[in-house]
């Protein structure tokens, strides 16, 4: 009698300890985010950063704002058309990324934006011809310097006329060479530094997209 009471007391105490632990574990597993993806070269912001407002213009002279980034994944590179080396390299790499993703059956394909940080020389019309050369779906974006800075400062993208530049016509522009990835909410989700390896960027994009979709 005494023995069986003791036994049931122990059983109750053990159950009293184990059940909350099991419950906590179950809660943890069922509510936790999927594991962060392993990336080949990109840097993921696990907490994507929403953007504060800016107003730029696309290569069809239509307004381009933080809301224009919503609804699809977008890659963005910041450069200028007088840039003969780094910018064609980056846009060529992004063209290859799109080809690789297309071959992998990724739909919809992420959009590619080329943001000119040289609005004094790059008009929307100039940009339209420039980006279409790389891919008909690429979008050129530019705007007033103050509005460009509203966007770039949120992304850690820096740019400025090089002190080496000899005159007002032939100046060169120093600029961050990172490719930025925005998620379909239009939030800053990841960046890809130099060198831009199309295979790695394509693989990272798929990993980030799958992780994002599993987190929703």
């Amino acid at each position, binding site marked *: 009698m005494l023995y069986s009471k003791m036994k049931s007391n122990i059983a109750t105490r053990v159950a009293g300890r184990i059940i909350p632990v099991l419950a906590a574990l179950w809660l943890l597993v069922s509510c936790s985010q999927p594991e962060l993806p392993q990336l080949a070269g990109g840097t993921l912001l696990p907490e994507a950063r929403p953007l504060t407002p800016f107003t730029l213009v696309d290569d069809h002279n239509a307004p381009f704002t933080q809301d224009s980034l919503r609804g699809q994944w977008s890659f963005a590179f910041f450069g200028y*058309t007088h840039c*003969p*080396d780094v910018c*064609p390299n980056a846009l060529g790499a992004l063209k290859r990324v799109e080809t690789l993703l297309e071959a992998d059956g990724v739909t919809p394909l992420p959009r590619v934006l080329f943001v000119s940080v040289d609005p004094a020389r790059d008009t929307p019309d100039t940009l339209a011809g420039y980006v279409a050369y790389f891919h008909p779906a690429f979008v050129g974006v530019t705007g007033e310097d103050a509005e460009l800075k509203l966007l770039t400062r949120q992304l850690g993208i820096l740019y400025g006329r090089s002190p080496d530049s000899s005159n007002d016509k032939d100046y060169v522009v120093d600029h961050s060479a990172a490719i930025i990835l925005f998620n379909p909410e239009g939030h800053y989700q990841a960046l890809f530094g130099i060198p831009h390896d199309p295979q790695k960027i394509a693989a990272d994009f798929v990993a980030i997209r799958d992780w994002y979709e599993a987190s929703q």
Partner: protein
Amino acid sequence: MKHKWILSLFLALWAGVANTADTLEVDNAWIREAPPAAPMLAGYLCLENRTDTPVTLVGVESPLFEFVMMHRTETVNGMARMLHQDKVVIAAGKRVCFEPGGLHLMMPAPEKRLLAGDRVELDLLFEDGTKRHITVPVKAP
């Protein structure tokens, strides 16, 4: 005897002149086909110095371009900048390549757009006053 001496001096001088421009190996030269709206073009090439003395490239000229500048793309802390190079030294026995993301030639796009398959005449100018003429294809990478 005197004639022989003059002849050897002449040969030595001639060899000295030939040294830079003619004994340098130039390969992998190309100009990147650019978008219609691109105001600037980039050119690339490799130079291999198989001699035992350094060779210094001080400029590039072409009848097709208003100017050709030697630039180096440098990326520091994610920031890309183009640095003008007055000269590029190819040390004895070394190979120096102008290639995407590094050293490159920068020139303004001519009025008539260059397309893949076109060929461009360039002169490489060396510090000792010699020149090397090369014909460079335009390519779309």
